């Protein structure tokens, strides 16, 4: 019975990195005592928070968007606000494991709870929103999209200029804190400009955002103070990444039929 139970329990164990041979007597395996296999397992660093989700870095250096978005602002916006949402979310998730195991996208939708959000929603969504926002910008951004994406914009807005006007108008008229999005609406199969408040984002309605602009005051106050208009123009003319927007709409075409597939090469 001894060897049978050893065999069975050995199979049930995950393959541990320090044991090569599952037939070894369990007693001879050097397992750390259970209480040491906590959140610091594998690391000597003292950490107060169990890490479920991590703080992703923007895909460029913090000074790369100068002079349109300063390093100082990025250090605060990413290093304090975005970081704070990640820490806040991890602290909430520590409390019980009912929300354990979701991807961030899934967690945002689950905690949105069809418009009756759970306490974790604000943090989860703001983590997602900021990841998406950094990726919506690039050094040397601005200008115009090309080919397939430009055609879709012209189809749904009449012209790129018209889209740009709508986007800017949305950003200027958003009252309080929130975000402005260029979104591919899944059911309508068309692009729209959408404003959301606080932490809400289009994935909770199953739509597919292509770019976003953070209009919370913390996103621009250090560089532009109250002049949101100047910030929005800097974003449109120098920061928005049409390259990333194109990648996103190509990916979206796997899920939304926009007609003949448009391969954006000359």
């Amino acid at each position, binding site marked *: 019975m001894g060897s049978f139970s050893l065999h069975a329990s050995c199979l049930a164990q995950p393959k541990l990195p320090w044991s090569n041979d599952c037939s070894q007597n369990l007693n001879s395996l050097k397992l750390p005592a259970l209480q040491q296999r906590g959140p610091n397992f594998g690391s000597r660093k003292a950490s107060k928070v169990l890490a479920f989700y991590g703080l992703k870095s923007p895909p460029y250096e913090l000074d790369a968007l100068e002079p349109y978005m300063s390093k100082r602002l990025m250090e*605060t916006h990413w290093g304090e606000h975005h970081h704070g949402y990640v820490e806040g979310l991890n602290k909430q998730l520590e409390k019980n494991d009912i929300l354990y195991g979701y991807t961030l996208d899934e967690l945002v939708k689950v905690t949105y709870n069809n418009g009756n959000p759970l306490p974790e929603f604000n943090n989860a969504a703001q983590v997602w929103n900021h990841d998406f926002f950094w990726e919506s910008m690039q050094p040397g951004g601005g200008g115009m999209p090309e080919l397939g994406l430009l055609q879709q914009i012209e189809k749904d807005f009449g012209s790129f200029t018209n889209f740009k006007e709508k986007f800017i108008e949305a950003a200027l008229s958003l009252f*309080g804190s929130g975000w402005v999005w260029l979104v591919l609406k899944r059911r309508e199969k068309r692009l729209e400009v959408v404003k959301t408040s606080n932490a809400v984002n289009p994935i909770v309605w199953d739509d597919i955002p292509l770019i976003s602009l953070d209009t919370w005051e*913390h996103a621009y106050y250090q560089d532009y*103070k109250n002049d949101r208009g100047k910030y929005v123009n800097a974003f449109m003319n120098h920061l928005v990444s049409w390259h990333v927007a194109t990648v996103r709409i190509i990916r979206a075409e796997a899920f939304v039929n926009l007609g003949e597939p448009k391969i954006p090469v000359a």
Partner: protein
Amino acid sequence: MAAAIPAAKLELKPPPYPLDALEPNMSQNTLLFHWGKHHRSYVDNLNKQIVGTQLQGKSLEDVIVGTYNNGDLLPPFNNAAQVWNHDFFWDSMKPGGGGKPTGELLKSIERDFGSFEKFSEEFRAAAATQFGSGWAWLAFNPRPSDGKELVVLKTPNAVNPLVLGYTALLTIDVWEHAYYLDYQNRRPDYISIFMEKLVSWDAVCAKLEVAKSQAA
């Protein structure tokens, strides 16, 4: 030829102290932008919205309550309420403010919150946890169902206790523009300094007296 006489418009009221009077707790720079730009633009934009309409000439409180429309806000609400909220906010502070209230006000706070410390904790928590833009308030409820006249509330964006039929006694602005230049993301530090160094308990006291006499 005589120039057309402009219709009566709302004016931007200055705070009851010079713009540098709240240093170092709230910098002159902050006041220059917060009052000089944000508050001013709410006044200018409200005037653009109401001049020539039936709202012109009404009191600000009437415009606010009228355009709240049970939560389905009409366009002038945001600007009207923000004009009022900021007037009220400057009045809620004074140079050399902070500390504890005394007399009837302290008694009322102790009666409805248990202690001043409990009130302070609740007020700070409301201010710290208002997600996004908004305000935290101490307000007077003339018809409390639980007998507690004094309540702490937090409201989003431009909403204020007037729309609930309450009388506002004290407020702190927790829109990011209120503290970003001086405290960046450190909202809890801003709230602490507000409570310790800025609150004008005289103003709160005066407002409570008015509220009580109106309710009587």
